[in-house]
């Protein structure tokens, strides 16, 4: 007992007895018994249906640890404390801050030419015609000028293709010019080349060393799979990319090269072999990516060859193997899960372009095509290659920055991409972790919002969110690893 001068805890709990009010919250079934309930900034709890009913019917009793948890995580508040309101305000602002930064990722398509002939490729050309498919210096000048019109304090310039190293002199030119301009603008400026590494010369490596340029490549898995997915004259694509990854690791350091995989029908049965390929190269990150519904991928029927549910099984199997590797002492992160865990477990917003609300088109990432056309996203460029130019914002040689960024189609798409006001999304407990993808929904449903019941984007993401939350609830070992990824 406390000495007589002091009041008991029950005295301070009296005001809690007068009832509570709900703060904005959403709930969605996790499985047949349990529900995920999330607040407006993504804090969540997994509760039984009966508890959710009591919660929303104001039947929960004060003084229990459940009541305290709901109050502490800002699902409810009562007369005893108003602290939830300023704190929720702070957290909501933090989550949204980066929308105000504006465009950070600037993709330069320096050529459409490529030595590969991948069936899933959305954009490449096999040709020797440099004039027709290479970006000119004049176009590059205009694009670099436009990059620095973005107010974002950190700017990343990504070189893409085709195979961008086929136009390496222009990359050198753009890096030099951006560095020069940055003496005035003083942004945190970074560069990355997305390349198949076929043309990785010593000159390229030395250039990357001198200018801090990172390299990102494609590695689909073991040789048989990689070479099948990504055919190249000489059939030595896999060997080339593996040798060159090692070369970069030796010369520039391990963290300067990353690899991305694309999933095909053949990949589905080989997720462990794919991951092993990454481990044998001592890579510490893998991104289990779905195939996107654009370009050759649609034309050649690739996109129809497996559905989202089969891909989800592939993803879950892969993630389970990645977690197992971690438990056995090899640190490797699955990137998509890492992004989602950051959204779930931290006050920060990782800012991944495809999981943003409002959508990241043009205002998070923007594409400068070889011919001066400016697109709202990489996928928008691929859509254009299929003949749909809706998300072409204009051309560097004809249109001003202001004209392009206030393009009506863009404005409409961004306005309708805000998930809190999108049908279905507005009631979904996973909303704080999700985003919207107007280009995807336009490509698949000819509607920038899209019917979420038919949406592969929605099905894929909800499947991932459910799976990750289930792992967090049921597997303590997995939970610790996922928590570490988020930190």
């Amino acid at each position, binding site marked *: 007992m406390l000495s007589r001068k002091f009041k008991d*805890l029950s005295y301070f709990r009296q*005001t809690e007895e007068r009832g509570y009010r709900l703060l904005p919250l959403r709930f969605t079934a996790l499985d047949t018994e349990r529900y995920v309930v999330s607040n407006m900034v993504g804090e969540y709890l997994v509760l039984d249906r009966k508890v959710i009913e009591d919660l929303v019917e104001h039947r929960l009793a004060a003084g229990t640890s459940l009541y*305290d948890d709901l*109050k502490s995580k800002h699902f409810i508040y009562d007369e*005893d404390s108003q602290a939830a309101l300023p704190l929720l305000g*702070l957290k909501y602002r933090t989550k949204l801050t980066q929308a105000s930064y504006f465009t950070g990722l600037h993709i330069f398509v320096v050529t459409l030419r490529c030595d590969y002939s991948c069936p899933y490729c959305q954009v490449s050309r096999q040709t020797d015609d440099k004039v027709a498919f290479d970006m000119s210096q004049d176009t590059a000048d205009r694009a670099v000028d436009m990059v620095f019109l973005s107010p974002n304090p950190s700017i990343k310039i990504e070189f893409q293709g085709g195979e961008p190293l086929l136009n390496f002199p222009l990359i050198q030119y753009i890096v030099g010019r951006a560095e020069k301009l940055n003496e005035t603008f003083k942004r945190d400026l970074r560069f990355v080349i997305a390349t198949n590494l076929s043309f990785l010369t010593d000159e390229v490596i030395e250039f990357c060393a001198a200018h801090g340029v990172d390299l990102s490549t494609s590695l689909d898995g073991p040789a048989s799979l990689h070479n099948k997915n990504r055919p190249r004259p000489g059939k030595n694509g896999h060997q080339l990319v593996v040798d060159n990854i090692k070369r970069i690791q030796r010369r520039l350091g391990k963290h300067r090269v990353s690899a991305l995989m694309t999933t095909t029908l053949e990949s589905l049965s080989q997720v462990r072999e794919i991951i092993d390929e990454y481990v044998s190269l001592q890579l510490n990150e893998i991104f289990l990516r779905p195939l996107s519904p654009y370009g050759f991928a649609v034309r050649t029927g690739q996109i129809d060859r497996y559905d989202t549910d089969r891909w989800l099984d592939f993803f879950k199997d892969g993630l389970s193997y990645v977690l197992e590797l971690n438990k056995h002492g090899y640190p490797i992160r699955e990137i998509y899960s890492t992004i989602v865990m950051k959204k779930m477990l931290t006050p920060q917003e990782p800012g991944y372009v495809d999981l943003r609300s409002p959508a990241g088109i043009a205002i998070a990432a923007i594409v400068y095509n070889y011919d001066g056309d400016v697109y709202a996203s990489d996928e928008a460029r691929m859509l254009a290659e299929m003949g749909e130019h809706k998300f072409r914002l204009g051309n560097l040689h004809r249109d001003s920055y202001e004209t392009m960024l206030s393009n009506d189609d863009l404005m409409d798409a961004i306005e309708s991409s805000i998930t809190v006001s999108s049908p279905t999304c507005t009631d979904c407990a996973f909303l704080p972790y999700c985003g919207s993808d107007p280009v995807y929904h336009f490509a698949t449903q000819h509607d920038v919002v899209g019917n979420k019941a038919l949406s592969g984007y929605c099905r894929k993401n909800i499947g991932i969110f459910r799976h990750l939350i289930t792992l967090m609830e049921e597997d303590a070992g997995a939970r610790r690893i996922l928590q570490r990824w988020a930190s």
Partner: protein
Amino acid sequence: MLNLHARASALSSLDIKERRLAKVTCNPSLPTPLRSMSAFLYEGQCEEIPEGFAVNLYRNGIVPQKTSGTNNIELSADQYFLSEGDVVRINPDLKVSVIYRRNASSNALLVTEQCNSFCVMCSQPPKAHDDSYLIDDWITAIPYIDESCPELTITGGEPTILKEKFFELVNTMRAQLPTTAIHILTNARNFKDIEMARRLASINHPDLMLGIPLYSDVASIHDFVVQADGAFDETIDGIINLKRYGQRIELRVVIHASTYERMPRLAEFIARNLQFIDQVSLMGLELTGFARANLDAIWIDPADYQEQLAEAIEILVMAGMTPIIFNHQLCLLRPELRKYAVKSISDWKREYMPECEGCSEAHRDCGGFFSSAKHRYSKFITPIRIAT
């Protein structure tokens, strides 16, 4: 244990009408203009006692052949530690308070014993009487403190209830001791008024941190611990206001029977809502004041909350925050937690127990016990033996 407050005895007639602040010196030829603000500490360095000092202090029975003049006093034996550069307050009744020790790693400036909270485990229980002389003394004493002093802690009571005088003290410290770090122990409730936060920030001290207690993620539990309804909301508002003005903040969590269970939830709350905090200190009890009066109600053996402590630390570390464990004996902490422990108990009240006999860490990396731990300490104290 050192005694900071003790009664001295007179060796001559006295002329101390009101309390005096004085800086201790052993230099008999200190320039005369400085002597009225100095206490001369005699250690046999001269034949005759120089004139003009505020007081002359003697110890170990060392006295000159002939004492002359007034204000010669013999220190109490437990204050023989006094040395050059320390600052003392001498009352007319010869109570000598050592308010600053130059050789201590940190010194606390007790600026008031009044408080707007009434914490169940308070080690410095608030007193309602007028003690405004305390802050006045500190404002006077700041110039006596060595400019090389690394850190000073402003504590209470609740320093901010002094309002103008509090800001005057911080201002004086910035002006007189520009390189001395300031740590302010405050419940931050008064900073709910953003003007208070603005004024503190406007002093623009280069190295200032506020240590703010937060005992629970649930308002009613925090309010119970501090025995003040609404305190949680005021502290949260205060923290937000201080951060709005870029002030550095340490959160201080005292672990006891009412707070240990939700420690991991509190860590989550901090990681999610207050990630801009600069440091989180998880602290063991000091069994003085109210903590002793309420001992049975608030005591929990640290061995019994290791699981919650470990989980809280892990959550904070994963959120990229800096947790520190205060006031815990190393042998009670799980081995993986020991690297977060600091030797935080002030040397003048640090002790070791009979069970520590033979421990490789006692007197080394282990912070030991508050002297008040004699009233109760963990049943699980065991020597740590490291082969040498």
